[in-house]
């Protein structure tokens, strides 16, 4: 039962003392709570009924004192509960975040970003809520329940059967109601998802809706989903509205029964006034744990589900391990020669689908300082190929060598130092422009940063902004156009002065003039570095020292532009389609 949560408890190792203290506090609070009705009984039976003034006043004072003590200890326990739950949340967040930071690309592929975010937010919260409930209720529940039972047995033994009736009926009512609500709630959630997806679709596709003048159709579609949701969410609500009055009526009926059966003069074991009243109060305290259980159980199963999801992330093995052997090589010696030897790659099996082969038997050599290009359509494998160079993924077979050293033997930090890659989607972080450009080399000088920006053709538009390099970059860089984001990403790559620069389709948003300028400038700034362009546009690759033409995971042709025009039919077709002709 609850296997993931049990595993989870391991993080509390060493916290026995505070946990014990908190439960002790709650236990004491519960005991004081149980004593209050006893004082009430005393007040009535030994005080008012017999006209004893002193006892009356004493009992009242004890009632007040016990209440305050119960509240005080309860507050102390609440403090612990809050500490435990918030610390738990923090600890879990850090575990998960550190784990995510240790991931490589392959790991990230297995866990979509949205799932990871759910793990870090709502899953953490669900676990936190469960922890809080446990601390608050663990000691309280058995003590209140058993204590009330005991006191009823000893004080009003002839009314015990009423209590059992109440407990059984309440437990039954709660169980049935909650189970029903649980099921209906799931239906409600499903209908809510339906409503939301209609909304989402229509909003993202509003242009299409308007282009085909289908506003009325969409309104009808939404209405159907809205109505279905209304019905589905009414049902659990209807059951929920029964709960509170039902609990009240149970207690009231039980009190009436206590009055009759306890007070009836024909009853040989008649109860006193005080006993009857104390009994009715203990009825309430005996139900508190039942209600608490009813609240906590769904919390527990939600927390269990969250913990299971969390462990899926925690148990993932980083796919690209950092070697810890020392090499007879240092970053300063890097030249930038890249060799692929019989390299094949396939993505691992996922969700019951077989592994997808992506690269087949790649063999190539790139000399230091060359400018090469990989040309091919989506799915040809070119991005995957270049991702192997900085070990974002490891080849499934064969090996990749930089300057004669297998990349798997290189410390990751050094590898990242000499290889800079500009990814397809230009991701910028919120902060300043200068922070983004210097992301790879925080101690870059102003000159280095500007030189990189100039080469990336970013300097001109950054200088045009009033704050210049101190200008704010909004989250995801949305305050810059696609082309500007690309140029900033390129500047970022250039700042770290890598020996190998890879630009993965990173000039696609630039018009051809700008692209040409940027390519030339990179050539100048990175003289001596190996530059690799990955592209779909012939215009991007046309001037490269070597072009590798890829299709379906294989290199089908390679050479200069002139050579390919002569020898490769596929290249000719692409020229035809993109340029409108085959330039001789």
């Amino acid at each position, binding site marked *: 039962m609850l296997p993931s949560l049990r595993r989870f408890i391991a993080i509390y190792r060493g916290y026995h003392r505070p946990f014990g203290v908190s439960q002790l506090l709650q236990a004491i609070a519960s005991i004081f709570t149980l004593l209050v009705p006893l004082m009430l009984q005393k007040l009535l039976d030994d005080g008012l009924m017999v006209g004893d003034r002193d006892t009356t006043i004493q009992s009242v004072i004890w009632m007040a004192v016990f209440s305050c003590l119960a509240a005080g200890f309860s*507050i102390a326990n609440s403090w612990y509960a809050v500490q435990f739950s918030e610390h738990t949340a923090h600890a879990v967040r850090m575990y998960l975040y550190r784990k995510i930071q240790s991931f490589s690309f392959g790991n990230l592929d297995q866990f979509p970003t949205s799932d990871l975010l759910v793990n870090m937010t709502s899953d953490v919260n669900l676990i936190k809520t469960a922890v809080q409930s446990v601390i608050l209720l663990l000691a309280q529940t058995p003590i209140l329940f058993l204590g009330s039972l005991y006191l009823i047995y000893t004080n009003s033994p002839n009314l015990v059967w009423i209590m059992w009736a109440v407990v059984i009926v309440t437990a039954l009512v709660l169980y049935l109601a909650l189970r029903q609500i649980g099921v209906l709630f799931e239906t409600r959630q499903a209908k809510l998802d339906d*409503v939301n997806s209609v909304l989402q679709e229509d909003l993202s596709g509003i242009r299409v809706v308007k282009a085909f003048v289908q506003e009325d159709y969409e309104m009808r579609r939404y209405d159907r989903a809205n109505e279905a949701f209304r019905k589905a969410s009414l049902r659990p609500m209807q059951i929920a509205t029964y709960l509170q009055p039902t609990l009240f009526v149970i207690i009231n009926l039980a009190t009436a029964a206590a009055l009759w059966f306890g007070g009836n003069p024909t009853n040989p074991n008649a109860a006193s006034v005080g006993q009857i009243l104390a009994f009715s109060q203990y009825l309430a305290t005996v139900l508190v744990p039942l209600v608490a259980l009813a609240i906590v159980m769904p919390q527990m199963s939600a927390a269990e589900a969250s913990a299971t999801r969390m462990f899926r992330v925690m148990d993932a093995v980083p796919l690209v391990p950092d070697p810890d052997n020392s090499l007879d090589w240092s970053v300063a010696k890097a030249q930038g020669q890249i060799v692929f030897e019989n390299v094949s790659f396939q993505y691992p099996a996922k969700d019951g689908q077989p592994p997808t082969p992506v690269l087949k038997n790649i063999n190539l050599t790139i000399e230091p300082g060359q400018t090469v290009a990989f040309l091919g359509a989506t799915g040809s494998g070119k991005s995957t190929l270049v991702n192997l160079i900085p070990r974002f993924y490891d080849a499934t077979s064969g090996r990749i060598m930089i300057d004669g050293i297998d990349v798997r033997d290189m410390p990751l930090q050094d590898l990242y130092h000499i290889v800079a890659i500009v990814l397809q989607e230009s991701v910028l972080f919120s902060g300043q422009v200068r922070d983004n450009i210097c992301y790879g080399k925080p101690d870059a000088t102003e000159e280095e940063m500007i030189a990189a920006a100039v080469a990336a053709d970013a300097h001109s538009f950054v200088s045009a902004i009033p704050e210049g390099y101190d200008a704010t970059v909004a989250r995801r860089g949305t305050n810059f156009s696609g082309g500007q984001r690309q140029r900033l990403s390129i500047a970022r790559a250039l700042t770290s002065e890598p020996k190998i620069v890879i630009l993965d389709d990173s000039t696609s948003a630039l018009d051809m003039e700008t692209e040409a300028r940027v390519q030339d400038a990179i050539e100048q700034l990175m003289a001596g570095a190996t530059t690799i362009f990955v592209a779909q546009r012939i215009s991007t690759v*046309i001037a490269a020292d070597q072009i590798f033409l890829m299709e379906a995971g294989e290199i089908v042709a390679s050479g200069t532009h002139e050579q390919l025009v002569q020898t490769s039919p596929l290249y000719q077709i692409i020229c035809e389609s993109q340029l409108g002709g085959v330039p001789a």
Partner: protein
Amino acid sequence: MKPFLRRKSPSKSPIPAEAPTKIQTFHRLNSYMTRYSGKLALVVVLLLIGTILNLMVPYLLGLGINNLSGPRDAAALGQTALGMVAAAIASWFLMAWQGQVLASVVMKGLYDLRRQVFNHMMPLSLGFFDRRPIGELISSVTNDTEVIALFFRSDLGELISQGIRLIFLVIVMFWLDWRLAIAALVVTPLFTAFMQLLSNASAPAYQALQEQIGEMTGLMEETISGQKVVIAYDRQEEAIENFKELSLAAMTAGKKARFISQLSRPGTLVLTNLDIALVALVGGSLTLKGLSDIGTVVTFLQYTRQLSVPLSTFAGAVDNLFGAIAAGERVFRILDEKPTIVDRPNAIPMPPIQGHVEFRDVDFSYVPGRKILKHNTFTALPGQKIGLCGPTGAGKSTMINLITRYYDVDSGDILIDGHSIYDVKQEDLRRQIGIVLQEPFLFSDTVMNNLRYARLDATEADCMDAAKRANAHDFIMRLPQGYDTLLTERGNNLSQGQRQLLTIARMMVQDPRMVILDEATSNVDTQTEQKIQQALNRLMAGRTSFVIAHRLSTIRDSDLILVLKAGQIIERGTHDEMMAQQGFYYNLFMSQFKGKLAGVAQVV
């Protein structure tokens, strides 16, 4: 270096100049519930009777206790007990009924509100959607309306029932014994002060918590979605450090805020119990002096215990009220939007388009002061293919928005077949113009239904025919369920090229008189590329077409090419004419080849 992966919370969207007052918003919200006045009246009546019955139970208990404190009368006791049972059951029945009716009113009100918002949004002009992030709109329609509904159900509903209860409690207590009533009610000001204190402390604490959580979540989201960059630049340690700071801050803020709210329950209990002790003391003294009896004391003890519930409900409800009003404001901002593109009062239907398009000195800006198009004038004859090219941001997509009247010009006019588009009905105009977007958009529905979206009365045969002409039929037949295959959200189970073919097929079903094509950047394989080209050519045949090109090869054969730069048409003509001119177009075209060409004259 200042850690940059942290940012301040984004500024909120601007509030219009004359914002409605909170009271006005509240009234407006109310109107969604009060329209069901009949049912609400029933709820109130049921509450009134139910509450009275409910309050009778402790009273009867008191009578019974009095019975027991003297010589016990079994018959009277029996009657009292039966009375309690009857009152309890009747009260249960009425309260449950009331709850049902209220729930159904609230859900209907929520349904009404959502429906109204959606129906109002759909016909709004495109500018409304372009100006707002989708997430914000979805949040308003979904979350904000939910907050409003929750408020009405839990808080307003509870407020009414607890309010009635409180009033009756006070009345009954005073009716029974004014001295004990005062003793019981003396705690009320204390209680109110306590709740106010808590609220004053917790509001800023929760706000601080929300901010911290917002920052932490923002950082989390940013780095995790950009994790590949973090890896590529080896910045994981820094990311962890930054996150740790924010997580700790959130934890600290959380401890404070949640501890404060934990205080409310024990605090309430203490006050209630002290009050009970006071009532017991006063009642006891009175009883001992013979001025009252045990039964009354017992009744008052029960009533006092029940006093705290209405009082704490009020405190909680006030907090939620502000949340609901804020949500209401956001929702009403949408409802108060008016479509900016409207038909003229005497708009005429657009006769079947022949395709003679004229732009006369058209100026346009999205934002006043930043002109996107300046003095655009040109003429397109029926059946011509017009190519648009130029640097990004030059205004090409804008031109499309204007022809279809998604936006209106600032000055100048656009005529089709001699009619100004501002004299005709928008619907007619749009039905006759087909648009192929850069990013093909498909619904998560079957292939057939996606095709039929163009014309709801199209037959299956029509759709299949269109698919054949669009070179889409073959791949559709290879899909698992053919035309009945369900497309996933955004059509993700098809490749990019297949989606494009499908949208072209959809266009064929529409059979428009004019075609506008915003070319997708080529990320499809060569074979599909050719199919798409062929399909597009079929689509454009015989129809006036406007093509925005990213590859000059697409528009080479246009009857007229317009070169847009900074909103102005700087060159125009056929490809051959402009190449001979050796102007901007010539440079643009040649830059594709990056000076690698010898014998370029052969190609051009």
